[in-house]
């Protein structure tokens, strides 16, 4: 078709002159996109609701999981997400002020408020990064598997680890050496790999048991006196097992740790406070939905399991396979929903920056209207809108 500079009569073109919505094409399409995006987030939140209702009491509660503040530590349930919500609401307000300034063709006002919005957006993305980091690293206690096979999350104040004092030399460290750096990391690594014990006697007892079990496995068929040796070993093993029961009866906050070089060190740790165990997976004794285990009993159960020298009894933080807060899907939903929302915020900030550059260059002023600011504003408010729902359904309920 050639470029005809003819004036088209509206009747021949499409019969109706006015748009039924009296809105420009661009704004209408932005609304349609937002409806489809809203359906995506709705789908995600409803599938979250589905999984949560199917898992029932095993599902973690927001205030159990999110109770930390930067620089202040634990004990501030939901305060941080509330702050994030406030930041996003304020940035939504600055955006709507930019749109309002645009309607008055006030270029300076638009620039001022858009920059404020962009700063708010960066603050929100930064807060979410902190939140993710905290979620991934987890608490000092982790989630523990108890003797009856149940799993419990632990809440309370973790007594600070002061140092490790070597009581049995290893490859590098001599008796009496004091380790003072990287304590929590070493402690948690030992807990995950089965390197925490109640006492040195327990470590040595278990080591001896292991040696005897290995010796029993050696094929002695046809050798002279094999039967007598075997019986002797079995007796010894039974004796060690009995001895272990006597040693094991007193779990404490401290215990010993096997360090990297194989040395055994005594853990000097301050006492924990307000320890509670909340069952998240039923075992033979403790069930999901039971009252939380508190006080001395909680401490005893926790440290008995932790200091058994068995790997994989405790989970710290979260990854895509497991997390310390509750069922596996909980971590996956957290990463997907808040991640997808965070990605929206990030792209919103980028779009805002691009439009802001357009405003500074005077593109929209020449056009005679600031509708581009209004359209990116719609997207930005939508991001705020989604967060309002994520805040309620992921954190509050």
């Amino acid at each position, binding site marked *: 078709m050639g470029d005809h*500079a*003819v*004036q*088209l009569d509206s009747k021949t073109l499409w019969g109706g*002159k*006015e*748009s*039924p*919505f*009296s*809105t*420009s094409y661009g*704004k209408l399409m932005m*609304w349609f996109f937002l*409806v489809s995006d*809203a*359906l995506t987030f*709705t*789908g995600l939140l*409803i599938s979250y*609701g*589905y*999984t*949560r*209702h*199917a*898992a*029932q009491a095993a599902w973690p*509660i*927001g*205030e159990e999981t999110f109770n930390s503040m930067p620089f202040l530590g634990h004990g501030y*349930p*939901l*305060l941080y997400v*509330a702050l994030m919500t*406030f930041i996003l*609401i*304020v940035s*939504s*307000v600055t955006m*709507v*002020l930019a749109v*309002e300034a645009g*309607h*008055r*063709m006030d270029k300076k006002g638009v620039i001022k408020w858009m920059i404020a919005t962009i700063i708010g957006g960066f603050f929100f993305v930064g807060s979410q990064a902190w939140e993710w980091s905290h979620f991934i690293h987890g608490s000092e206690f982790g989630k523990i598997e108890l003797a009856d096979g149940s799993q419990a999350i632990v809440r309370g104040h973790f007594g600070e680890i002061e140092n490790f004092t070597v009581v049995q030399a290893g490859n590098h460290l001599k008796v009496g050496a004091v380790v003072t750096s990287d304590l929590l990391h070493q402690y948690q690594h030992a807990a995950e790999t089965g390197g925490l014990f109640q006492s040195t006697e327990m470590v040595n007892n278990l080591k001896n048991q292991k040696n005897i079990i290995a010796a029993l496995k050696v094929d002695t068929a046809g050798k002279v006196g094999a039967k007598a040796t075997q019986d002797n070993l079995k007796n010894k093993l039974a004796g060690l097992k009995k001895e272990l029961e006597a040693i094991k009866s007193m779990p404490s906050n401290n215990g010993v740790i096997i360090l990297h070089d194989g040395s055994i060190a005594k853990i000097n740790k301050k006492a924990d406070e307000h320890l509670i165990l909340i069952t998240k997976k039923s075992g033979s004794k403790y069930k999901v939905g039971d009252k939380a285990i508190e006080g001395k009993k909680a401490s005893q159960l926790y440290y008995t399991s932790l200091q058994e020298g068995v790997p994989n009894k405790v989970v710290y933080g979260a990854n895509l396979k497991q997390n310390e807060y509750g069922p596996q899907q909980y971590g996956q939903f957290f990463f997907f929903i808040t991640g997808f929302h965070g990605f929206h915020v990030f792209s919103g900030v980028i779009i805002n920056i691009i439009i802001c550059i357009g405003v500074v260059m005077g593109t929209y002023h020449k056009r*005679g*209207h600031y*509708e581009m600011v*209004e359209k990116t504003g*719609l997207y930005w*408010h939508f991001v*705020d*809108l989604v967060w*309002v*729902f994520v*805040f*309620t359904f992921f954190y*509050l*309920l």
Partner: protein
Amino acid sequence: MLRDDLIEYSLHTHHSEDTGKKIRKKIFYVTILLTAITVGEVLLGAFIHQNSSVWPLVKWTFIILTLLKAGYIVMVFMHLGDEKKWLRNVILVPYFLFVAYLIFIAIWEALEVGSAVATYGN
């Protein structure tokens, strides 16, 4: 193609300094309201735990307050309240119909699955 029969709808939204003042006042009012609701929600969540007997009431309060917040954001910040009635309907009605159905079907089934697992195990 030059067209003089097109209406530049983008210009319809322009307003004067006086109208702007009124709009800013409204924005300020909504900001205070949204902040107050969020603070109220956090306080409610901090003091009433999920094992409390009034929790179901608190839960529904949260949901209603959330819808209220969402309503203010959509109607005032996104200016949907100032659009034509049929634009509002085209956006909201299909969305709510679909979502209401999805919530009903998904939560109902989840509760059945949950009780089946509780009864027969995994």
